[in-house]
């Protein structure tokens, strides 16, 4: 009975992570960057881990979200809610267009199609320099306080305040995605990943499901982009560069595509290790390269599978009666 009342382990872990991060990391700013990329990685994980679609379009949503939020704040003066809403609308539209077209093909063609779109958006953003700032990026994105009916909820002036905004958005999105993957819609996505042909044969219009998943993924990543623009007060061109897509994909796979919480692990790992190592040794990417090779070869479940393995070992050693069951939120029973 108690089991029903407690939120799932993944939820508890997310809340714990969000509380702990600013405390154990060298700066609150780094914690904010971590949370931003956790959100972006969640968006990628939905597509890759649950639908089985490898898309290079992450940068499109991330960049569009950042530009939309930034531009709305700079030109429309509509406050943080407005900026987030602009990012929502624009990333959903971008996701719909790119998704509806890309989903027409499968396998490597789908991957290459998203790659082509990613490059297209990059060069368009580069060319529209009057709007996006081109190579220089969108500068001076303001960060007004977060208010509701004139009451200031978060001043957003301090790093901690900005972190709180990111953390709240993360938790809301995590709850949303956590419920989604356990829902009928989520189970259908998993069915499509497992065997799309069979999913069609039993009656699912898999195209529609894939497009919707693509749009949701785009929206989530777009929110991350918006937060990033607020955080940096700046939306660089690199947000929409295909290397950003690669980065997010790496975080997703390294964290583990078997569970949503894997995204928390992957993004935290990449941002923290990257920042810490980079300050010590500028060639930290060499280490990352080796890590990628090792993960692809030997630890395909990513960091999450490492955590799972440790958890199973611990439970075998010290079984706790009535413990909250380890819930697999990926397929299966």
């Amino acid at each position: 009975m108690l089991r029903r009342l407690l939120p799932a382990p993944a939820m508890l872990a997310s809340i714990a992570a969000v509380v702990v991060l600013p405390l154990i990391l060298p700066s609150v700013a780094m914690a904010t960057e971590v949370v931003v990329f956790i959100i972006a990685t969640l968006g990628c994980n939905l597509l890759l881990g649950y639908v089985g679609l490898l898309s290079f379009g992450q940068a499109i949503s991330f960049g569009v979200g950042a530009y939309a939020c930034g531009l709305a704040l700079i030109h429309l003066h509509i406050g943080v809610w407005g900026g987030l809403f602009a990012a929502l609308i624009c990333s959903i539209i971008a996701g719909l267009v790119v998704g509806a077209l890309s989903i027409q093909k499968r396998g490597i063609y789908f991957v290459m199609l998203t790659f082509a779109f990613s490059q297209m958006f990059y060069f368009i953003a580069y060319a529209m320099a009057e709007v996006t700032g081109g190579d220089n990026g969108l500068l001076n994105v303001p960060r007004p306080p977060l208010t509701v009916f004139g009451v200031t909820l978060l001043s957003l002036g301090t790093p901690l305040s900005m972190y709180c905004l990111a953390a709240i958005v993360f938790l809301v999105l995590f709850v949303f995605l956590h419920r989604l993957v356990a829902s009928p819609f989520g189970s259908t996505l998993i069915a499509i990943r497992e065997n799309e042909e069979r999913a069609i044969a039993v009656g699912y219009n898999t195209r529609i499901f894939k497009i919707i998943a693509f749009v949701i993924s785009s929206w989530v990543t777009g929110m991350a982009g918006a937060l990033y623009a607020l955080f940096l007060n700046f939306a660089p061109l690199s947000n929409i560069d295909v290397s950003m897509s690669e980065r997010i994909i790496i975080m997703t796979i390294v964290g583990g595509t078997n569970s949503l919480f894997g995204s928390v692990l992957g993004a935290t790992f990449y941002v923290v290790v990257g920042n810490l190592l980079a300050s010590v040794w500028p060639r930290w990417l060499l280490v990352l390269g080796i890590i990628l090779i090792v993960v692809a070869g030997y630890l395909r479940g990513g960091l999450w599978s490492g955590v799972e393995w440790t958890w199973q070992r611990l439970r075998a050693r010290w079984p706790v009666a009535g413990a909250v069951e380890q819930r697999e939120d990926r397929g299966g029973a």
Partner: protein
Amino acid sequence: MSAEPRTALAVEGLTKRFGGFAALKHVSFAVREHSIHSLIGPNGAGKTTLFNCLTGALKPSAGRVVFAGRDITHLPPHRRARIGMGRSFQVTNLFQNLTVFESLRLAAQAQTGLAALDFVRPKELLRRAVANAEVVLDRLGLGPYRDTKAGELSHGRQRLLEVGLALAVGPSLLLLDEPTAGMGVEDIGAMKELIATLARDYTIVLIEHNMRVVLDISDMITVMHLGEVLVEGRSDAVRRDDRVKAAYLGSEG
């Protein structure tokens, strides 16, 4: 028993050309409701092509497929399941990593229309799908394996699940593609029994290579050869037909 039995499925003048090659030439037959109608013929007869036209995997070059009075010739595959056509695959095509129960539940869920798009409630709360899956699980006798991953089942049970996925769709017509493929003798017997009992509630179109099964349980047999209907009739008639013998032996000689 009421009036004349109705036609569940009718194929009219179905033709399929691949470039210059005609895989199907004006194939026509009608399947009576609640009957077991088998399609047999030597390799290359066009059975698979015909089956693919019935399931929507292929579009015919000419002709019609009529299901329950409705022209479904150009209906996309996923819609066919929704209007009552369940199919199984010749080569086992399951959700390997999903459990037996979840596989059946998914098939049942597909029929719930917009409810399948629900992204908020836990999937277990979609009662209709869960209930239908339980019924099929029971009927197949796969209860003890409900939490086993499909990929871990024995071949015979996988073939059962194949049929189960077609059943879970809640169809009126079952299209079974070589359900006994690769099965051992005992399993074949069980499958034969299952199909025979299913005919009480469903209309069944069967492609089969196992002659004993076909001759034992079929109400009607359509024999195909080189893309055309060669002979159509009841088991004993077909068994004794010289043209059928020639077609089979001729293609092996």
